[in-house]
């Protein structure tokens, strides 16, 4: 029997795909695939460090996509869920996928296939929520700025949506939890990391980083939010079901509730 191997990659998606490539290429018996920031040596396995190689990653990407467009989306979305041990599950998922003839008909009674598609579904929901719950604030240097704190690493997924929609304004969405952001400079989107002195969530104190008219519009939006609800139909349970409390501190219309 082959000795089993633990693959260590750099934490990027391309790194992971390279690891998958290496595992297929060298016919490794994979014990685990781990990020280099949080790796743990196994007692009975060798470790191999993977160096990210874009060409190899691309071959894996295309290979999965040729099997099924649905599957490549599932793999990418589930990877971004950052769940512990998702890499090995994805590797098994890819193995199963490559074993099928068409890749279209996956048996959802299989535990791993079901779990990956459920993870992907969760990340997809968070992506959709972030497209809705980002609240831009206009800074003095004409940048629309927003803080977010999503459950999963969805910034790469929402970047296209915001680029297509706000093509004529500079904007910056910053993930407070993962300490990086995406910035659109009227031409393309780039990744940035900031040295934020404070996080701009709902506070009664006005920050001088923003224009004064910014707070006027926030007040108007607040007013609109209040006057559009019908008192005789009030339903707080349904409200928090749609707008979970963990997002409230970044939503300007919930300023008073927080």
């Amino acid at each position: 029997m082959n000795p089993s191997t633990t693959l260590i990659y750099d934490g990027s998606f391309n790194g992971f795909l390279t690891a998958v490539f290496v595992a297929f290429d060298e016919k490794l018996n994979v014990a685990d695939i781990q990020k280099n920031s949080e790796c743990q040596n196994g007692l009975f396995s060798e470790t191999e460090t993977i160096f990210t190689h874009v060409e190899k990653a691309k071959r894996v990407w295309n290979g999965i996509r040729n099997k099924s467009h649905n599957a490549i989306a599932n793999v990418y979305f589930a990877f971004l869920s950052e769940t512990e041990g998702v890499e090995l599950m994805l590797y098994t998922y890819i193995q199963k996928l490559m074993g099928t003839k068409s890749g279209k008909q996956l048996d959802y009674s299989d535990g791993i296939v079901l779990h990956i598609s459920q993870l992907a579904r969760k990340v997809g929901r968070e992506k959709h929520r972030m497209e809705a719950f980002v609240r831009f604030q206009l800074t003095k240097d004409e940048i629309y700025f927003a803080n977010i704190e999503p459950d999963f690493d969805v910034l790469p997924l929402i970047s296209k949506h915001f680029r297509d929609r706000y093509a004529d304004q500079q904007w910056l969405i910053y993930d407070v939890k993962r300490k990086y952001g995406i910035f659109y400079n009227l031409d393309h989107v780039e990744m940035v990391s900031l040295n934020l002195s404070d996080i701009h969530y709902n506070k009664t104190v006005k920050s001088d980083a923003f224009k004064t008219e910014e707070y006027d519009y926030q007040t108007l939006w607040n007013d609109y939010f209040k006057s559009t609800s019908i008192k005789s139909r009030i339903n707080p349970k349904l409200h928090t079901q749609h707008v979970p409390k963990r997002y409230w501190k970044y939503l300007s219309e919930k300023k008073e509730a927080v």
Partner: protein
Amino acid sequence: MDFDRIREKLNILADAAKYDVSCASSGSDRTNKNQGLGNTSRMGICHSYTSDGRCISLLKILLTNHCIFDCAYCVTRKSNDVKRAAFKIQEVVDLTINFYRRNYIEGLFLSSGIFKSPDYTMERLVAVAKKLREEENFNGYIHLKSIPGASDELMYEAGLYADRLSVNIEVPTISGLKLLAPDKKHEDFTKPMLKVKNEIVRYKSERKIIRSTPKYAPAGQSTQMIVGASGETDKDIMYSATYYYRTYQMRRVYYSGYVPVADDARLPAIGSQVPMLRENRLYQTDWLLRFYGFAVNEILNNDHPNLDMDVDPKLSWALRNLHHFPVDVNSAEKQLLARIPGIGMQSVEKIIKARKFRRLNWDHLKKIGVALNRAKYFMVCDSRHWERRDLDAEKIKGMILQTSSGKFRNQYSTQLSLFN
């Protein structure tokens, strides 16, 4: 910008517009042109939710709440003593753009009270949409209200800028309309609808020949009916809804439980309860008609002019038609699966996919998400256990109600409660 003035106007005019139920931003696929502002998302995005749990995806306001009509059910009617206000065109444009840039909304929903004449009002609405599209290069979602009685030329122009147009029919019966809105004629509502429908058909056929034909109201038309204001039956409501779906190719008909806003002998008194359960049952029926392949006369007819309040319309249909059941989920065709109470269209799709791999039993169906407490009386599957007793409809209904709970149950239950 005179901030306080705008603030006051927004409060008045958003408050008056909130009784319009529709806030959909879906169904249109406008893309961002020439590095402009905005696009629309095919499935729509709800940016927030009101404290009554309805979606906020559009800036929903009236251009003005001045009105020359005196419709009894309406909060902005002529005889009502409320604060009146009106937006300037530029003010609406500024508000929309600035809200949109901050990602608060998907676009604008502009309605209006009727001042001077229907055409004069419609012209203003179109002017706002035109300014947004042509001067601000705005490609977000615009929903315009068609003003009853507006001319065909204006309706044509409105469709060129808007994604969706809607006329609220409000009162489902013509006799009710005469009673509650004596100034309005039924034809005033249907004329703009017909014009828009014909244009949509024309543009669609032209698009097949010339790809670059501009869009005309890509998200179609919708309408709204008030429920519980004029003593109409559920049959009246659903038959006229079916008529609008068929004749004017409506994308949606909305049902709005009447919220009492005025003291009027013709209407329910202020403070009476909003018929939310009835509204819910009507929407369930609407879905059965549009997605489940039911015909309206199967659910509502002269023998059953009203929907059951204690069970959903599909279950109530099934209890009246027990001779169709039990259905075998492993062999029945799609239409029949969709008629089993407790199985929704998503479950139907999953069942059809899953039964290619293996014969399904109760465990599979439970995992798929079928509501077995209702479904188990109406189906058989790959299991020796199924309902063998010869139960009559009343018995089944009683057993289902006993093993389930509903949030509206206390409204119709005959069970006395100890603590009230």
